[in-house]
């Protein structure tokens, strides 16, 4: 079996040799061997592919020198597999580039004939190409998946969550080969068809024009950590196309994680194409329950959408127990019984594990609903919770139109401040102090919680004033928020939600940084649950 990774690989030529060919789609969990052979900061797809080839003993590999990572992969694989061939793919699409690629294909055929001791079968190749039909554009509304490659099961997973067509425009997608002319030199025509397929970011051709062939309702844009190609396109695309875009960053293997699916769901909700689970009722009392990583909060509304009661509890070791307890306390405070509640909507990281909820909606949509309910002038929500921070942009009707979240890192979250309070040996309340009369302007430079922790330890060792360090830490959280705000663009009014909104020190530093006033609701932790309760009461999600 010959393994390959790139869509520009001459798969049909390999098939004409009557050989089995398979796209390598790593599903491994660790990079034990790969990280011994290369650097940990290489892209996770490259490391995954290397690990997969070694684990599965794939001994024939054809690569295209697509990017720096794959080029290094090729060199690492030398002497580790029986047959390795690297095809040099030109980046331009013109006649002389096609000629070069044609020569590369002939060289591949020669090399494989020599290795395998069998001839390339022209007739078989001709028959394979006869069966090929180029993909025809679909004019129906669709969600496009764009950017770095996705695994096939991931595309299916997105399809299941969406009520319109999902098209895969990544390099594992549908536009691998354009039409092939059957006359004259078939291999040259084939080379030309491969070169003229929808270009990947490596090529110099314009990719954006191609998108105009589709009726796009939204774009899910994937970037892979340490694969930097696609972030450029994302940065241009958001200014070029008037289509909602969700950017996600994965390490290729973790797409199915709750954090990423959460964003996809929120995005599909915001463009109105998420599959609806149940019909909601519109009489009685309605509950929203937000099962977060740090606190579990519940809100009950009456049918006129007035807040009847709410509860806030720390999330214990078992999220479900905390959810039941928040549910019970909210009922008790409102003097209601379970049967009085017509509908329960759950949100937060634990939302799918709450058996008594009728429906689950992401906290992004819920924070949007809740904040807009509290103040209809709010256009930007800064939500800093225990394990993530996000900025949500609302339109004039309170619908979520864009959002960004921190990526897989606790810097700039409530957890970051918890860790630092522990290092400084101060109660978390002391971290909330507004420090105006600082002695020294300390900047915490480390971007990662673990490194920031050692930086703080060394500041303590230098006898720096704790209040100055706290100010530095709060400013570091503010700077993370400012960066997220930069990505969605600033627009007043601002509201801050989540537990960290109770930290006056952080709020003060964010206000300073963005030079705008931030509204802090009376109980910032319940905004998500409030939004869920509003959806339970019949507001569109």
């Amino acid at each position: 079996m010959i393994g390959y990774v790139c869509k520009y690989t001459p798969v049909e030529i390999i098939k004409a040799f009557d050989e089995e060919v398979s796209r390598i789609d790593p599903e491994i969990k660790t990079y034990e061997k790969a990280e011994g052979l290369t650097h940990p900061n290489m892209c996770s797809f490259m490391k995954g592919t290397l690990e997969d080839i070694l684990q599965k003993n794939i001994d024939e590999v054809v690569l295209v020198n697509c990017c720096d990572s794959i080029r290094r992969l090729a060199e690492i694989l030398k002497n580790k597999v029986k047959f390795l061939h690297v095809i040099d793919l030109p980046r331009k699409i013109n006649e002389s580039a096609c000629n070069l690629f044609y020569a590369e294909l002939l060289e591949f055929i020669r090399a494989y004939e020599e290795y395998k001791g069998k001839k390339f079968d022209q007739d078989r190749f001709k028959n394979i190409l006869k069966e090929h039909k180029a993909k025809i554009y679909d004019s129906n509304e669709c969600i496009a998946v764009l950017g770095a490659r996705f695994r096939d099961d991931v595309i299916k997973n997105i399809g299941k969550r969406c009520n319109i067509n999902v098209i895969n425009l990544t390099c594992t997608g549908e536009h691998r080969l354009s039409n092939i002319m059957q006359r004259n030199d078939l291999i040259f025509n084939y080379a030309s068809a491969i070169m003229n397929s929808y270009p990947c970011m490596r090529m110099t051709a314009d990719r954006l024009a191609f998108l105009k062939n589709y009726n796009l309702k939204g774009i899910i844009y994937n970037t892979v950590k340490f694969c930097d190609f696609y972030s450029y396109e994302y940065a241009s695309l958001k200014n070029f196309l008037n289509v909602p875009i969700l950017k996600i960053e994965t390490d290729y293997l973790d797409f199915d994680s709750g954090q990423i699916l959460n964003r996809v769901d929120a995005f599909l909700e915001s463009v109105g194409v998420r599959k609806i689970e149940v019909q909601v009722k519109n009489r009685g009392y309605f509950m929203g329950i937000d099962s977060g990583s740090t606190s579990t909060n519940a809100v009950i509304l009456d049918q006129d959408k007035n807040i009847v009661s709410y509860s806030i509890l720390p999330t214990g070791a078992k999220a479900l127990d905390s959810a039941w307890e928040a549910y019970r306390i909210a009922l008790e405070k409102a003097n209601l019984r379970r049967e009085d509640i017509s509908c329960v909507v759950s949100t937060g990281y634990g939302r799918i594990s709450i058996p008594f909820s009728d429906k689950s909606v992401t906290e992004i949509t819920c924070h949007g609903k809740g904040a807009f309910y509290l103040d209809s002038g709010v256009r930007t929500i800064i939500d800093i919770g225990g394990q993530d921070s996000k900025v949500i942009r609302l339109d004039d009707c309170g619908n979520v139109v864009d959002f960004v979240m921190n990526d897989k890192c606790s810097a700039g979250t409530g957890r970051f401040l918890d860790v630092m309070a522990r290092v400084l040996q101060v109660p978390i309340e002391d971290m909330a102090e507004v420090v105006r009369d600082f002695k020294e302007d300390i900047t915490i430079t480390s971007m990662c919680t673990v490194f920031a922790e050692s930086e703080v330890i060394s500041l303590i060792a230098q006898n720096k004033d704790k209040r100055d360090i706290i100010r530095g830490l709060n400013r570091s959280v503010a700077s993370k928020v400012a960066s997220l705000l930069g990505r969605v663009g600033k627009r007043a009014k601002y509201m801050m939600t989540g537990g960290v909104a109770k930290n006056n020190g952080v709020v003060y530093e964010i206000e300073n940084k963005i030079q705008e006033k931030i509204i802090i609701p009376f109980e910032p932790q319940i905004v998500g649950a409030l939004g869920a309760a509003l959806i339970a009461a019949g507001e569109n999600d």
Partner: protein
Amino acid sequence: MNAVNAYLKLVRKNLDKPTIAYKFIKYGLNVAEKYVSFFPDRRLPESLRSLTKLCFKYIRAPIDNPQNAVWVNIFAPTEFLHAMDIYPLFIEAYSSYMSGFCVEDCLIDKAESAGISNTLCSYHKAFIGSGELGILPKPKMAVTTSMVCDANINTFRYLAAKFDIPIYIIDIPYEYNRNTVEYVKGQLLEMIGLIEGVFNKKLDLDRLREIISLENRTRKLIKEYINNLKYKSFNTTMATEMYMLFTSHVFMGLEETFDFYERLVDDIKKAPDRSGKGIFFVHLLPMFEKSFKKYLNFSSEFQILGSDLNYDFLNEMYCPDPFEAIAEKMILNIYNGGFERRVKAVSNLVDEIKPDGIIQFCHWGCKQSIGGVGIYRNYFRERGIPFLAVDGDAIDKRNNQEGQIRTRLEAFLEMLKRR
């Protein structure tokens, strides 16, 4: 130094005011050039003092004269620009100067907040951040090559679209043969057509031939310098080795560059015999990193012998057909093509210079270099030459974990001392 710090604070404070920030940067570069002219660092040999000054001149020209400037990457064929009296702005060097101005963090944050990946190379992020902030003057056009690093095409394409300027991308194939040379030649001809149109002037082929001839003579001097490094050495700095990237790449073929190498050869001949342990770098030198600066700059115990990046093409070029000569130069660069080409070239340099230890500074986001760390490690282990790979960032100082780097470097140097 207080005046310098006050100035740096002022630049930082005004980064969101593009016109003012641009003026401050111009002013700072101008004053710095004058400073190094009047108060050169006496610890450096005369040739390297003149190099510092020369680099300020080279970086200032396109910033001061954007209407006659082209953005280029380090591997771009700037011979054409020199032949047409156009100033190249060498983007990697620009980012390095911005790190010297201590504003790289703001620039990088700006690029990341525009959506650029945080795992991208900091040289590119800092340049993009400058473009996003508008503190870079708009040049006439941009020229980049696909060589060596994936970021080149993307950074240039992104900023060219943002600034609405023409761009030419030269695609350099991996292998050297007749077809690939013709493919590159064809592109160079197309590029010249574009440059001539943009600047409304003609390329003088004879002038181009003279530049290539001077390049050949300069490379002879470089080889002579390498030859002397075997026995002799200066107590130099990482910064001067990095400055040499101006003369070995973007400004190769100019009279002043030739003069610099002539002086360098004179100085190395006069230099004392190597007394300390010689350190050779593959790829970049961490000129801003504290521990490296402390242990290597001006050290007679551990002497910097240079980097392979300054010697990535040492062949003679064929003057009568400058297009062919330049196409060959790009395809045959040791950083282009398979990694074995680079290993072989480093191996030749090691045979020539005979360092006591090799360091690969694994620069944040530089996949093309760090991906080969395992290959280098195995190669030097086989040859019995101590090798250190250390992670960090040549631009963004926030990515350098001081304690971790210090421990690794000290342990490596202790190891060298014992040998």
